[in-house]
């Protein structure tokens, strides 16, 4: 019954993350209605839709961040490599280490240096990293986030001393340092200038070689530029899902066409 409505990715791509009959609630309010979606390994999947359509809620269900808010709950399944992250005995923090997340506003930890920010996720269970291991992780993370060249001489400075775009890349480095398999980005560029935005979009296509990326955006051009697949949400329902090219040039649904051509939203 769940599978009947599922939109599957075509061809030989393997599915990294999938949701089946996923509904999300805030108290009595139902924010997501029965979402079925497959996200392909090593691709960038964009989630688009007007404000309040449930884009953020959807990705927050993927790494169990939805339930952090009081009164919020989830029904249905989110399958990571075929295993339900909401299954019995599954530890939410462990899920979040496999599915990293970057938020709308850059959130470097204010009391930490650039270096400490990058490794913040690694010492959570109390074990200490050796000096050399730490240096390796910091350099790798910052290089992956295309920030290394800009900050390599000021690793001891506060993370908050960087510019907005740099802070956001620092947050990406911090998320990557934990070595997740999936990276969720919730409107990562909405507070950034066009040049910083371009850098991050460029970065996403590089990162897709190693990670599965889900990008929430209210910027349709960004979705068109930076993603392989696009999911269009409206009113908490998945209206259409397919290859980005097809969604933007030849959408199957009337609502999708209206949205991507700028007639509303």
């Amino acid at each position, binding site marked *: 019954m769940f599978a009947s409505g599922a939109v599957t990715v075509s061809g030989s791509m393997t599915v990294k993350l999938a949701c089946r009959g996923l509904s999300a609630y805030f108290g009595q309010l139902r924010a997501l209605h029965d979402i079925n979606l497959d996200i392909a390994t090593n691709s960038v999947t964009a989630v688009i839709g007007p404000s309040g359509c449930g884009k953020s809620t959807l990705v927050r269900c993927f790494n169990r961040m939805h339930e*952090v808010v009081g009164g919020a709950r989830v029904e249905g399944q989110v399958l990571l490599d075929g295993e339900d992250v909401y299954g019995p005995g599954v530890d939410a*923090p*462990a899920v*979040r280490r496999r599915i990293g997340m970057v938020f709308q*506003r850059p*959130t470097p*930890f204010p*009391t930490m240096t650039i270096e400490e920010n990058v490794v913040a*996720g690694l010492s*959570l269970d109390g074990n200490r990293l050796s000096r050399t291991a730490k240096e390796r992780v910091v350099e790798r993370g910052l290089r992956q986030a295309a920030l290394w060249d800009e900050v390599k001489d000021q690793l001891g400075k506060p993370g908050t001393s960087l510019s907005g775009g740099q802070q956001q890349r620092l947050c990406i480095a911090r998320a990557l340092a934990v070595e997740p398999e999936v990276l969720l980005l919730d409107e990562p560029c909405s507070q950034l200038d066009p040049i910083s935005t371009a850098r991050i979009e460029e970065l996403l296509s590089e990162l897709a070689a190693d990670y599965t990326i889900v990008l929430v955006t209210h910027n349709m051009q960004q979705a068109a530029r930076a993603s392989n697949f696009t999911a269009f949400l409206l009113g908490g329902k998945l209206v259409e899902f397919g290859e980005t090219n097809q969604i933007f040039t030849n959408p199957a649904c009337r609502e999708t066409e209206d949205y991507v051509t700028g007639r509303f939203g």
Partner: protein
Amino acid sequence: MSGAVVHRARSAALWRLRSAAAPWLCACCAAGVAGALLLILGYVVREGLGAFSLSFLTELPHPVGVAGGGVGNGIVGSLIIVGLAALMAFPVGTLAGIFLASSGWETLVDLVRYLCDVLASIPSIAIGLFAYSLLVEPFGHFSGFSASFAFAVLMLPLIIRTSEAAMRGVSHEIREAAIALGAREHVATLRFVLPAAWPGVVTGLLLAVARVTGETAPLLFTAFGSQFWELNPANPMAELSLQIFTYAISPYRSWHAQAWAGALLLILSVFALSVLARLFLRRSARS
């Protein structure tokens, strides 16, 4: 019709007059407040400076009729009593503040917050009586520790509310970012939110210390006072504001002068504490 126009013109004039007068009224009130403070400060300085000297800070009180003498034992007593009180109230208060800021248990949070407000409004003399019945009467003698306990109870609501506010002041996003990295919720609170809130928490402690430093009422039947260098909080201890009280109600002119000097010292130390608190707060506002 012309009546309406005249009326409008008159109300416009009235409005202009009012908006011209309002800033002046506010300025007068502000000047009144500042003036009262300056008057008190000036008077205390004038009366207190005469007896203020190095020996006043370092010596024991002298008997009536013997010139000189100081409140050295009172200063030491104050430091010990307030220090012990801070040691007791700070961990309990901060943890309670963290609980109020981060627990999802709404009913209990509301109840604790309400009780905290009630505690804050209990007169300090009643808290002194409470300490007396709990720690003085059963032991049969006054003690510095019982005063510390009373002070700790007085400090608690202030520390709880300021640390709660400091924790809430830290952006919710910091907590979410830590949880999204895989931190458990208590780890996110203690290792990521608390450090960011730390300057505000310390500010709350300093303000609470400043608040009890000027308290006298609970000391009357807890610390009781002492003429000696008493360093053991199990015994009755001297305390600065208590000494001021004793000197002030005495009939001797030389003791009155010492009371004024003590008041000056007290005001200066509370002032220093609040400047320190402001510096901390400014640091937190920057980060």
